[in-house]
């Protein structure tokens, strides 16, 4: 837990935890209390993506910094806002977590340890090691495996859990992603994009909990159907853009 209690990283920069929020009223307090309960002294930034439940009012009473989108822009845009804030404030390390309580705050040191070993970005994976109690539906598991293979083929990096939102990254990666970030489903596309630009990506095992309240953004059947096609197209466009950049 030693890494947790240090407010600054090995370069002397402050660290921040960014959590995108959309209609997570019932999960917010527990998530923040869990992070604070682990003794993490870092800044916590919650990006409210135009919530329509009581999330916005609740956030005002939590010990966090709140950035509020006036309208709902999508998960990716909320992450991007958080990353832009981190870059503007000069945070050296950014940890991304979901606000729905699925990610375990006490596992942040495992991500940081991998960063300290030289990675630029670390993905917390529910597909490595044990993932107690977390079940991924077969269809989604197949999709993740497929995009993992696509990411390996295009980006050269084998990441098993390409849809994980539990990540830790260095400022350089945050700066790159703050510029261009997909608005919806920023998964394989981001991994491929980082891999193609030779950022060092690693993956560490992480436990994910089942969401207690609310529903996932992937639970909408229309979005679930649209997702693989959009991600596949986006992945190849990332490759095309890079080829054009190199010319």
């Amino acid at each position, binding site marked *: 837990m030693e890494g947790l209690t240090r407010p600054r990283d090995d370069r002397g920069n402050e660290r921040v935890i960014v959590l995108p929020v959309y209609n997570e009223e019932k999960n917010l307090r527990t998530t923040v209390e869990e992070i604070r309960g682990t003794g993490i002294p870092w800044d916590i930034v919650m990006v409210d993506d135009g919530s329509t439940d009581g999330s916005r009012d609740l956030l005002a009473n939590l010990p966090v910094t*709140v*950035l509020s989108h*006036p309208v709902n*822009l999508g998960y990716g845009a909320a992450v991007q806002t958080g990353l832009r*804030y981190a870059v503007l404030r000069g945070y050296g390390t950014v940890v991304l977590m979901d606000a729905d309580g699925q990610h375990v705050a006490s596992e942040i040191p495992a991500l940081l340890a991998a960063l300290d070993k030289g990675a630029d970005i670390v993905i917390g994976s529910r597909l490595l090691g044990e993932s107690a109690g977390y079940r991924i539906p077969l269809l989604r598991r197949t999709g993740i495996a497929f995009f993992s293979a696509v990411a390996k083929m295009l980006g050269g990096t084998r990441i098993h859990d390409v849809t994980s939102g539990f990540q830790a990254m260095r400022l350089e990666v945050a700066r790159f992603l703050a510029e261009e970030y997909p608005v919806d489903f920023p998964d394989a596309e981001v991994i491929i994009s980082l891999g193609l630009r030779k950022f060092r990506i690693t993956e560490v095992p992480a436990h994910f909990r089942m969401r207690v309240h609310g529903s996932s953004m992937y639970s909408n059947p229309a979005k679930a159907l649209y997702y693989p096609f959009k991600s596949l197209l986006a992945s190849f466009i990332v490759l095309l853009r890079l080829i054009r950049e190199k010319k």
Partner: protein
Amino acid sequence: MSLHAKLVITAFALFNVIFVVELLRKRKLSESYTLMWLFVIVAVIFFTWAERFLSSITSYFGAITPVSTLTLLSLLFILVMLIFFSMKIHKLERSIKEMAQRVALDNPKGNVG
């Protein structure tokens, strides 16, 4: 095409001229879009009355009647317009995203730390 059909199309086109100019006057349409639609209306009137030109295009396409050619050209035009407006919507979406993010970044609230 019968004279009756030509007159109906022309009347409809002229009605549209009044309609788009009125939209511009009420500030519900910009000058650039009004101009674009006026060009479209002029093209419709031209194709309606320039029978020889339309017939030559019809034979070039291998279509049976000039009306088929007009339908084909209309479909192509609609397709181009849809792509154009998709690009416009995308641009507006990006602008809204940038604005909303700027609003959020300029107004951080709460306790830091």
